[in-house]
């Protein structure tokens, strides 16, 4: 008793040595007789249970072991426990982050909804950017291929020669239409059933016009006769008696967001509804514009294809065809969109095609659909997700002062999802380093007042 206080030195090294020597003396006799057999049994047990690398001491504790120091001469990849925090989640997060940034650059108004979706889970992210192909209905070639026969004999001869191409486009139209996820599908209006045949003709005409346009663009200027025949077919389709469906109006509806298409009808019904009152457009109308806008349309079409690939991908996968046919399908699909009003009356086909292939609103329509209301409040998963993104950087703060211990960060999350205020219980460079890392955390946007959280980081070597 007196020894520890002699000279106010406290327990010197000799006393510590004595204490531990005494501790050694408490090892029971015969303890090591079967120690090696117990080790081998444990080795068998760990190998059989597939729990290699995990100490029984750590089992069930729910605590990962980032502090497991590398063993000298050991083979690090053989440690499954070290992979617990590298299960690929960070890669998914990185992918989500990249996609979020890309989408935010394109559609800034959607950022909050995207944030919420992307941060929520990788599954939500998938539904935003990569719709489940199963959502698309199987490809079906409608009997529309035969409907052009209903077109009157007044059809010009040159256009009749192109009918085969029109049929190809007509086949493409339902394919593209069915490739769209079911959530964009609207129920048909029962009262419009009698107009279906006429609507079919109108759809075929619109699809044929789009297809021939695409063909004309794709073949380039080397074939001078092609544009004329293309125009002839388009015009013929438009002026088909009994089916003067207004393709501009029909396809113009594709640019209207679903929210605006409350009185939604199918493309066929829409076309039929417009058939009688809609006057046939002038045959030559828009021809000059068409030539001028060919290049722009091609570029815009490409952009539209990129932004709408979430919808286009399943159909491409299911019905791999030539590039022309794929483009036809997409355009025909757009043209077959429902038409809520007669706002498109009098529009030139070229304008409609511009809207369809390069319309600014077209991709918005597909991306507004999954918009969800913001969260009311953040939950544990949100905090865990956000902190998981910065945890690695925070843990690196150990190296600043080689401080080992828990640093608890207190921070406030704004409704926008950004961290506004951060403080730590550890002062100095280490605390500042952790605070800096936490500041970078991003939460999903939520409705409500700024919320404060505390989150501990265990710093260790």
């Amino acid at each position, binding site marked *: *008793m007196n020894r520890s206080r002699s000279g106010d030195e406290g327990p010197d090294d000799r006393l510590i040595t004595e204490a531990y020597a005494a501790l050694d003396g408490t090892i029971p006799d015969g303890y090591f007789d079967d120690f090696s057999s117990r*080790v081998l049994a444990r080795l068998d047990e760990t190998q059989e249970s597939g729990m290699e690398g995990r100490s029984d001491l750590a089992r069930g504790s729910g605590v990962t072991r980032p502090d497991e*120091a590398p063993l000298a001469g050991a083979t690090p990849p053989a440690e499954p426990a070290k992979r617990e925090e590298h299960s690929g989640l960070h890669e998914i997060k990185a992918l989500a982050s990249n996609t979020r940034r890309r989408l935010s650059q394109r559609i800034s108004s959607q950022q909050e909804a995207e944030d919420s979706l992307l941060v929520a889970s990788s599954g939500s992210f998938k539904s935003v950017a990569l719709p489940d192909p199963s959502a698309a209905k199987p490809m079906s070639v409608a009997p529309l291929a035969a409907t052009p026969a209903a077109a009157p004999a007044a059809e010009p001869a040159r256009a009749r020669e192109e009918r085969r191409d029109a049929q190809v486009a007509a086949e493409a139209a339902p394919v593209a239409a069915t490739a769209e996820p079911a959530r964009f599908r609207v129920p048909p209006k029962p009262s419009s059933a009698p107009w279906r045949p006429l609507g079919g003709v109108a759809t075929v005409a619109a699809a044929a016009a789009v297809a021939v346009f695409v063909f004309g663009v794709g073949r380039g200027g080397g074939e001078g006769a092609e544009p004329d025949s293309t125009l002839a077919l388009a015009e013929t389709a438009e002026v088909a008696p009994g089916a003067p469906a207004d393709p501009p109006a029909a396809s113009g509806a594709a640019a209207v967001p679903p929210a605006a298409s409350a009185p939604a009808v199918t493309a066929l019904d829409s076309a039929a509804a417009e058939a009688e009152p809609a006057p046939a457009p002038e045959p030559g109308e828009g021809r000059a514009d068409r030539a001028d806008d060919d290049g722009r349309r091609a570029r815009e079409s490409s952009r539209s294809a990129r932004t709408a690939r979430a919808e286009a991908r399943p159909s491409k996968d299911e019905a791999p065809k030539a590039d022309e046919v794929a483009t036809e399908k997409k355009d025909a699909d757009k043209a077959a969109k429902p038409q809520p009003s007669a706002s498109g009356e009098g529009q030139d086909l070229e304008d409609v095609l511009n809207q369809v292939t390069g319309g600014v609103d077209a991709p918005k329509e597909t991306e507004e659909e999954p918009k969800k209301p913001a969260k009311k409040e953040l939950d544990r998963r949100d905090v865990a997700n956000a902190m998981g993104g910065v945890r690695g950087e925070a843990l690196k703060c150990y190296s600043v002062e*080689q401080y080992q211990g828990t640093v608890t960060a207190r921070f406030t999350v704004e409704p926008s999802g950004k961290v506004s205020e951060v403080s730590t219980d550890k002062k100095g460079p280490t605390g500042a380093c952790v605070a800096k890392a936490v500041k970078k955390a991003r939460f999903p946007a939520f409705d409500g007042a700024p919320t404060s959280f505390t989150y501990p980081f265990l710093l260790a070597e």
Partner: protein
Amino acid sequence: MSEDDQRLIASARGGDRAAFGELVRRYQRRVYAAALHITGNHSDADDVAQESFVKAYRHLAGFDGRSDLFTWLYRITVNTALNHLRSRKRADRLVRPSDDPDGPPDTADATQRTPREWVEIAHELRTVIEKVCELSPVLRVTLVLATVEQLPYKEIAAILEVPEGTVAWRVNEARRQLRQEVAAATDAAARADEEIA
């Protein structure tokens, strides 16, 4: 490293459990002692020692033989024990090193003490170990390596993979905290004795 060790290692790498069992028997006492010194109780020391050998077996292929086998085993043991201390939620259990006044502890000057001194020393040693076990894991391990195992700072730094300066700071800090805690404990014990008297 002896030729016997090399032969046993080669056999164990080939899956010979008996050879590995022989290696365990050779080093079990030293490995267990290291585990006991760090954990402070037999139950945890048993777990740590066994786990250390299991890890050693699994990583035997990575042992390049440049260092002594025990040095390698010792590092595994220290790291395993350190991990154990960090992950353990429960309080350290402490065995009483020498409660039996009739049985003198295994110390160098045991024969020079009176029976009453044995009681005091036993209590004092208990207090020291108890307070060592209350130190943070890194301070505890560093202090044990420096004072009990008497390893040079350079080697401790290599085992714990920290700079030597950090080792020195930890040892000094551990001593300071230990001195403070033991003094407080002995003062409390002295006051209790006075009240009884």
